[in-house]
């Protein structure tokens, strides 16, 4: 229903556009969605491999190194120790040195990747002696584990989503729009830089989430539950999406024939999936609670390093850490987060819809990013995923601005990893992507009012100045993190404005749909 309307709006647009723009896209996009996907996925895979040539977090910085070493260490632990010792502090497993603090699915994934490493380079995962193992070949093997996970999980999930989103009619739809949408999802510079540069496996948890989203859109609720539980069990951060999944599935269950039965089915699926994943740790209560406590690092502060969220940015004025105890901060952040995602949840229970679900994902993950406890700068990836899924809905300029603020918010981190060059290359590529012949029409449509154009130009100028300042000027001795704070406040203001906008947008949806329902009744 919604899609049909969108198409109707678009067709006259594309016909009035100059012919050559159409020509460019039809030169490449002659084949159906599969052809488009093949082309774009090869290109984005090439980008990922090229980024993986660069440095990773903590390269050559003993004694703790960085995320790369953490992942390698988990492979070392999981391949050498019995499963019951993985999360426990033993003589063979020193939890203070990058102890495993992700849910079991990450541990299993580390185990399989560890086997792969062991086969080709046994030294890289030998117990104790492999700490800080940094060889060219070892790095290559590690990079290939991320690449293969990306290719096997994230890419198929994107294909599934696109096929569902654009419906069964493969020849229909404006092909250049489809291509652009695929490119925006696959060529997400933040995701590429974090996974293939900094070194993490976000592609797995995000890919599973994306699969769940596609399953929800195609009304396969049970499959969605399984996939989302797997995602949760890979990285607990996926809980950022939980309110949206819960509210949408709950809301649509309420509208079916037998609500309690439907809810029960979903609940059992969730429990079953969790039980299977947690099976090795369910034999005693002790084991279970130890693993659980590893996953919730409440003893750490309310934020780490510099994050563009509420707590970090307002701490310039209000010293949260000094004013409150960790306990009360935990409560405070919980309340703030719930208050922020509650409106979008209510909307989805009230009138669940596919588009509303995507907005709900965006709003709840933004709420968590902005207000929850212990947020990393990399967590911006979670709101970015639904934002790219909504690329055809959101005004082009806004999604471009969001992407680039997110990139800027990761800039200090990536500079520390010595990844300024790939950062700049992907930043440029991302701008080009939004200015691509097919994306350009999308952006121009919303640049009609000069006020908007003006504010966007100002924002980009500020961002450029911040980049230059951060790269060239040394901060004053008294405030060594002055520029980080400036960057984070700049990004925070954008994220906050964006949150308000998308929440409003989500609520407008339900108004639209109710008015449409009324029209139908009248007809």
């Amino acid at each position: 229903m919604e899609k049909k309307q969108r198409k109707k709006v678009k067709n006259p647009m594309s016909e009035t556009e100059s012919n050559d723009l159409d020509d460019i896209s039809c030169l490449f996009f002659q084949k159906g969605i599969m052809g488009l996907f093949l082309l774009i996925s090869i290109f984005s895979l090439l980008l990922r491999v090229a980024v993986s040539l660069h440095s990773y977090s903590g390269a050559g910085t003993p004694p703790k190194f960085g995320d790369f070493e953490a992942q390698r260490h988990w492979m070392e632990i999981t391949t050498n120790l019995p499963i019951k010792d993985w999360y426990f502090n033993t003589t063979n497993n020193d939890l203070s040195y990058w102890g495993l603090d992700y849910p079991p699915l990450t541990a299993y994934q580390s185990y399989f990747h560890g086997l792969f490493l062991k086969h080709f380079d046994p030294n890289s995962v030998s117990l104790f002696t492999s700490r800080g193992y940094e060889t060219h070949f070892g790095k290559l093997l590690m990079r290939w584990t991320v690449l293969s996970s990306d290719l096997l999980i994230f890419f198929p999930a994107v294909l599934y989503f696109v096929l569902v989103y654009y419906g069964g009619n493969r020849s229909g739809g404006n092909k250049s729009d489809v291509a652009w949408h695929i490119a925006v999802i696959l060529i997400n510079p933040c995701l590429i830089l974090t996974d293939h540069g900094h070194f993490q496996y976000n592609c797995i948890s995000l890919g599973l989430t994306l699969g769940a989203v596609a399953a929800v859109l195609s009304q396969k609720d049970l499959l969605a539950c399984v996939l989302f539980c797997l995602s949760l069990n890979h990285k607990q951060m996926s809980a950022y999406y939980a309110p949206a999944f819960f509210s949408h599935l709950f809301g649509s269950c309420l509208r079916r024939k037998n609500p309690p039965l439907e809810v029960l089915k979903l609940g059992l699926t969730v429990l079953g999936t969790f039980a299977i994943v947690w099976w090795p740790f369910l034999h005693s209560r002790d084991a279970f609670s130890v693993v659980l406590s590893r996953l919730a690092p409440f003893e750490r502060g309310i934020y780490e390093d510099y994050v563009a969220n509420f707590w970090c940015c307002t701490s310039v004025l209000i010293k949260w850490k000094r004013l409150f105890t960790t306990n009360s901060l935990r409560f405070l952040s919980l309340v703030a987060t719930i208050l922020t995602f509650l409106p979008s949840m209510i909307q989805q229970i009230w009138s669940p819809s596919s588009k509303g679900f995507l907005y709900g994902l965006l709003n709840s993950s933004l709420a968590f990013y902005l207000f929850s406890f212990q947020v990393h700068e990399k967590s911006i990836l979670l709101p970015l995923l639904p934002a790219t899924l909504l690329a055809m809905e959101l005004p082009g300029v806004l999604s471009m601005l969001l992407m680039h603020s997110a990139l800027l918010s990761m800039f200090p981190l990536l500079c520390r990893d010595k990844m300024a060059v790939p950062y700049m290359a992907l930043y440029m590529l991302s701008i080009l992507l939004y200015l691509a012949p097919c994306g350009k029409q999308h952006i121009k449509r919303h640049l009609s009012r000069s006020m908007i154009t003006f504010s966007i130009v100002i924002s980009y100028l500020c961002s450029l100045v911040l980049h230059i300042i951060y790269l060239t000027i040394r901060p004053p001795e008294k405030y060594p993190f002055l520029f980080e704070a400036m960057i984070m406040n700049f990004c925070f203001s954008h994220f906050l404005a964006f949150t308000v906008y998308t929440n409003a947008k989500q609520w407008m949806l339900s108004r639209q749909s109710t008015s449409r329902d009324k029209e139908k009744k009248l007809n």
Partner: protein
Amino acid sequence: MEDQRKPEKNKTSTTSNLLWFFGVSTCVKLLLIPSYHSTDFEVHRNWLAITHSLPLDQWYIDKTSPWTLDYPPFFAYFEYIISFFAHLVDPKIVDLEKGLDYKAESVVLFQRLSVIVCDFVLLYGVYRLSKNFSMGFKERVLMWVLVVWSPGLVIVDHMHFQYNGFLLGLLMMSISYLMEGRDLMGGFIFAVLLCFKHLFAVAAPVYFVYLLRHYCWKGFVKGFWRISVLGAVVVAVFAAAYGPFVYLGQMQQVISRMFPFGRGLCHAYWAPNFWVFYIILDKGLAFLLKKLGLNIPVPAASFTGGLVGDSSPFAILPQVTPLTTFIMVLLALSPCLIKVWKNPQPRSVARWIAYAYMCGFLFGWHVHEKASLHFVIPLAIVAGNSLEDARHYFLLSIVSCYSLFPLLYEAQEYPIKVLLLLLHSVLMWQSFSALFTTDATAKAVVSAKKTDRQVGLKGSSSDVVEKGGFHIGWIGRCYLFGLLAVEIWGQFLHPYLLGDKLPFVPLLLISIYCALEIMYSWIWQLRQIMVST
């Protein structure tokens, strides 16, 4: 009013679209900065150091590093200019002694960026071609895809490290002037190009005949005037390049540096050309005769070793000298030259020049596999002209890119080169299909559109497949599968089954297999040139 505005708008959109293509490729090139680079990287660094720290009279004499200056003077001047920027970035880059094998981040970044920036010359060449040449919009975009996103250029320039994009940009500029009919300018730029890299001289006979016939053959007085103008321009260019060295009395030295004939017929890795078959035939004959009981002396020099001395490496067949190869190249070129003389038309210039480089590649002395770019890039200009051209280019381009694979032998770059080739093939496949299906059935679509858009599109596309849009035929398909088999054998099965035994077989297979297609392509091009009117 509208009619006046239309071309203006078209022009700006052409420029911005081309810039977009170039921007995307620049991003990929930036990402490839830390990838593997060959000794050519150190060669160019050493040239920076030589030109920066030594006076002109020492440039072609210095022997501090084994990588002596062996390009013509314009390239030396070019290095001299960028060495100033290098000095600003990091003085150690241009230090003759301390800079030897310098591998710091600064020098990698600087040299890589210098190649990326120099690619603007290629961009300008392509821009000139697409601005003036009366191509359809799709053909123009196709050319951008083939040239600006050329995987071969990325592999050779931005990974292996060379400045081919810049030099080929000059060649494209020269071709664009010739196609416009501005022969003098075209000749001038070609002369400049020759003074940058003398390997481009293979096309000089074509230029000579074409310019003589098309530019100078205009009656006695006008012709004489034009020939003297052209001669003066070329002499001036060469004087600017070589004048200082003539003055210093170093011409002998410069020439001996530029033409090191002591290097042997084939490079360490055999470029896929005619001589591969020649060597194989020799080995086969020797083996056969030995089986028959004849006493064949084993040649002292081997081919797989790389450098070859004076002794003949052939057991049976006669030895090949540089003169032989020279004569063979000229012989191969002669049909084309006759054609040029008979009917010099600007629109075929790119084809002829590409053919000349093809001949040089097939029969030349000590040919590098990288030289295949010299004909693949100019051929991109005419690739969209007809279905046959497209089919031929599709295979040739894949094979030429594949023959570059041995340049990057490390595991780290393996996925990159494979993905580059895959991307290129898919892009070519899709754009060629689009180009030739829509052309053939444009009328059918228009009539079908009126009735029902969806049904019409579906029907027409299936029609086209039946009528034969873009396809490469079963021979082409089998050949590509064979290519895949060669790659799988060389990369995976050979090391797995045979271990370290016969280490040269995978490379040998690649050379022979690619040489097949290159030979076919040469014959095809020759036929095409002879048939065309």
